[in-house]
């Protein structure tokens, strides 16, 4: 064969993406090393470097340590473990391969999930001496969760069990019993010794009882093209091309199904219909396109379509919903905060989403389900998710491309979780879109809006400024001008004073000590309520006794209570008495006026003491206080 025909042949090969799972001890790296080595992809000089490296930090005695070829990052090499997902490439005469090489330990579950997301096939390694162990089960579960349809159980280290058929058969039977509870359509068993090369590339003579293929032969021949979904046409628009007034094309990858010229199509969410006018590509205008081709299409009619819209066939719609159930894998070091409003990205669509309910989490070792209120790194479970706008999706089992999504933390921008949609979730069960956590809060009478959220919106803390002082000491002048200033500065404040409260809420109350206490108790509760909603209250009340001011502070909460004392002597107050109350009291027409016939206790520890003579300055003092205590503005 000359080089031309070789190359012509070579470029027709298809591509198999596979995942290898197992730990260092299983001989995974040795298997991969051998596949690469024996397919002559390990270059001479890499080998030379390998010999040098092996002497220094190798773990395999005098033999070549294949693992050193594979572990990329320096720190990982020193520790002798593969931490991240590493991608390897090799090729045979029949096929091209991309291996996602992932670590096996439980703390690297997320890495394995990552590697599995793009794989068609998984090789799960088991040590012939140990058989089906917890790790084997965990790997198999993850592989099935990520929808890999072809699994090879490579029973490795057969050399250490004298190539015994019974050992192999027992392991196969154990494994078959385990996988019945999972959903993997195609399972193959291969007895192997990666170290000695048995059944890796060539069928070994040391296991005449085995009549199957070698690992490489199997990988070269396994049929994968029918794994793609050619039934349900899903074309989520990725990019709109408008090079000229004449051409308006919708560029994307065919996620699933087949799209043909002249097909009648429907656009989601608008539900407008049209026909495919042409499929345009740099290489011409094909009559049809299928996954995973990247194309662009033009339509007969002018319809407004943008990124995130989905083009489908009218008789075959995806699910369109804001609520769905999914299996979620937590990928972030930071534990899940179930109150977070994440970004969700699914196909080419990004919107906000939150986790409604956590149904359960799964112990990846035993597959046991248990209740959870949040997930930690590497934890997997079933959740209900609600999105801000409807998504167009299919169950992941039916369609990997439209059933997968990622959740992005809105603060760190990290990819916090990844998910596989099970199906839509009936919104009615959500109790008007109220989550389980929220339901409990409502029962307890707790707001669904968090204090932090309010603080962020108002740029202030909901606290009480309580102004005490004798009648005529200038409390109201201060409170009213302060309200005006705060309003102008953008603060949200409510003013409460005797006139407004006594004209309605406390109408039946008198000025006796008992009635005054009741009056102030009511005000304290109003103030507390407003504070809890993020609003600053300005309360202007004589509140004459230390005892009653303490009660008020206790109701409002000591942390939110700021006491301002108008330090005016009785002469100043008499002069400033606009209602003539002091005269009435002197004449005996009015009772219970503090400073006359009831005592006024000077506050023991006011937060601010003001001289009423200096009006303007007093406002600045309070504004300074609010700002330095981060009450307003916070930023």
């Amino acid at each position: 064969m000359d080089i031309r025909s070789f190359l012509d042949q070579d470029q027709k090969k298809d591509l198999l993406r596979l995942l290898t799972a197992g730990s260092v001890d299983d001989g995974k790296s040795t298997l991969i090393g051998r596949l690469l080595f024996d397919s002559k992809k390990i270059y001479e000089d890499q080998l030379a470097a390998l010999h040098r490296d092996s002497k220094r930090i190798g773990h395999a005695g005098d033999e070549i340590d294949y693992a050193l070829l594979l572990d990329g990052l320096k720190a990982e090499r020193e520790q002798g473990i593969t931490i991240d997902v590493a991608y390897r490439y090799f090729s045979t005469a029949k096929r091209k391969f991309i291996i996602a090489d992932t670590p096996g330990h439980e703390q690297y579950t997320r890495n394995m999930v990552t590697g599995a997301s793009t794989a068609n096939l998984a090789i799960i390694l088991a040590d012939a001496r140990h058989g089906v162990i917890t790790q084997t089960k965990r790997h198999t579960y993850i592989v099935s969760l990520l929808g890999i349809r072809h699994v090879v159980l490579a029973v490795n280290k057969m050399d250490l069990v004298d190539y015994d058929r019974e050992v192999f058969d027992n392991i196969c039977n154990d494994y078959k019993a385990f996988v019945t509870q999972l959903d993997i359509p195609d399972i193959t068993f291969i007895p192997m010794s990666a170290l000695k090369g048995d059944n890796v590339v060539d069928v070994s003579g040391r296991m005449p009882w085995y009549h199957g293929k070698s690992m490489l032969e199997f990988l070269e021949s396994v049929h994968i093209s029918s794994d793609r979904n050619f039934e349900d046409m899903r074309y989520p628009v990725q990019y709109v091309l408008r090079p000229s007034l004449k051409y308006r094309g919708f560029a994307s990858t065919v996620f699933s199904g087949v799209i043909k010229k002249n097909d009648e199509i429907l656009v989601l969410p608008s539900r407008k219909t049209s026909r495919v006018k042409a499929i345009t590509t740099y290489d011409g205008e094909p009559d049809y396109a299928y996954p995973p081709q990247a194309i662009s299409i033009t339509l007969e009619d002018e319809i407004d379509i943008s990124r995130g819209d989905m083009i489908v066939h009218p008789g075959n719609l995806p699910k369109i919903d804001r609520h769905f159930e999914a299996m979620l894998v937590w990928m972030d070091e930071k534990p899940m905060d179930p109150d977070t409003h994440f970004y969700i990205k699914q196909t080419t669509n990004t919107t906000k989403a939150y986790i409604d309910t956590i149904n359960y989490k799964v112990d990846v070792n035993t597959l046991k389900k248990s209740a959870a209120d949040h997930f930690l790194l590497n934890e997997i479970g079933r959740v209900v998710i609600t999105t801000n706008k409807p998504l167009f999706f299919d169950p992941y089992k039916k369609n990997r491309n439209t059933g997968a999504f990622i959740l992005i933390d809105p603060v760190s921008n990290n990819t916090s979780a990844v998910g596989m949609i099970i199906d839509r979730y009936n919104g009615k069960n959500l109790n008007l879109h109220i989550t389980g956590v929220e339901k409990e809060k409502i029962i307890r009478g707790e707001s669904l809006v968090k204090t932090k959220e309010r603080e962020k919106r108002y740029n202030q803390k909901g606290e009480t400024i309580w102004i005490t002082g004798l009648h005529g000491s200038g409390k109201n002048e201060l409170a009213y001008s302060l309200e005006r200033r705060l309003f102008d500065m953008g603060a949200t404040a409510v003013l409460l004073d005797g006139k407004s409260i006594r004209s309605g809420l406390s109408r039946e109350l008198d000025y006796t000590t008992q009635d005054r206490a009741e009056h102030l108790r009511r005000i304290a509760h109003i103030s507390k309520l407003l504070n809890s909603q993020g609003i600053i209250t300005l309360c202007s009340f004589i509140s004459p006794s230390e005892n009653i001011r303490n009660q008020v502070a206790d109701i409002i909460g000591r942390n939110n209570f700021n006491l301002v004392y108008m330090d005016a002597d009785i002469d100043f107050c008499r002069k400033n008495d606009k209602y003539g109350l002091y005269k009435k009291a002197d004449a005996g027409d009015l009772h219970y006026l503090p400073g006359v016939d009831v005592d006024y206790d000077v506050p023991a520890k006011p937060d601010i003491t003001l001289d009423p003579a200096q009006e303007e300055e007093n406002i600045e003092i309070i504004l300074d206080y609010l700002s330095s205590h981060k009450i307003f503005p916070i930023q």
Partner: protein
Amino acid sequence: MNSYTINNLRELEAESIHIIREVAAEFENPVMLYSIGKDSSVMARLAEKAFYPGKVPFPLMHIDSKWKFKEMIEFREQYTKEKGWDLIVYYNKEGFEAGVGPFTHGSKVHTDIMKTKALLQGLDKYKFDAAFGGARRDEEKSRAKERIFSFRDRFHQWDPKNQRPELWNIFNAKVHKGESIRVFPISNWTELDIWQYIRLENIPIVPLYYAKERPIVEIDGNLILADDDRMPEELRKKAKMRKVRFRTLGCYPLTGAIESDADTIEKIVQEMMTVTKSERTTRVIDFDQEGSMEQKKKEGYF
């Protein structure tokens, strides 16, 4: 009966186009780094395909170390003009004026100042929030674990311990102001794929890739091209004509040639598959120290 199979090159092509379109859709100001090499040529073709029949919505940027092969610069000018690319050429002016070069300052200093630093300056100057690079995972060990969307902080630094999970074909394009993403759309291509694709698509490449009689000086076992007056004269005098070609093209005195008769793509592929020397060994930079590429990447190099 229609056939719905796809061969490996077309599958890789589709994957790359998908990545390029995602970046154009999600970032405000992307740029494609263009090194004039064969990988860049393939990447540029993929970008053209991604937006056909429209124009590619981002520019090419070449970080000129001022020590590129003459033929590369000629090729760059001709190619970008012909294709109507919007081309930015950026170089580290300070370094250039200080006379930084591989002969006088050594390969490490030269690479730091004229390549890594120049790249960071260029990215900062135009405030690019995404930069395409033509790196492949099969090139070098530390690249095997690189993401397709590789996050960089405000200082362009890469943290190998803190990479974002990357699943399916769903890419997280969220960055804060000042942060950026390096995007590697041809991550999954191998060297053979690149050559196959160049052959299949008839993509023009710099003639230095093809074997030809060229004046060569041997420096530390590397075959260095001596057709350039930036090389000291006493070295140039020692040049002998040898039939050589280049497997990779970096800065000219940092990239060694190999002796070869391969003057067509077919012969290059044939040579590649029988003569086994991995491609980066002709780049002096990798030999500085073990893990040097990883170190360079942490500092912001591609």
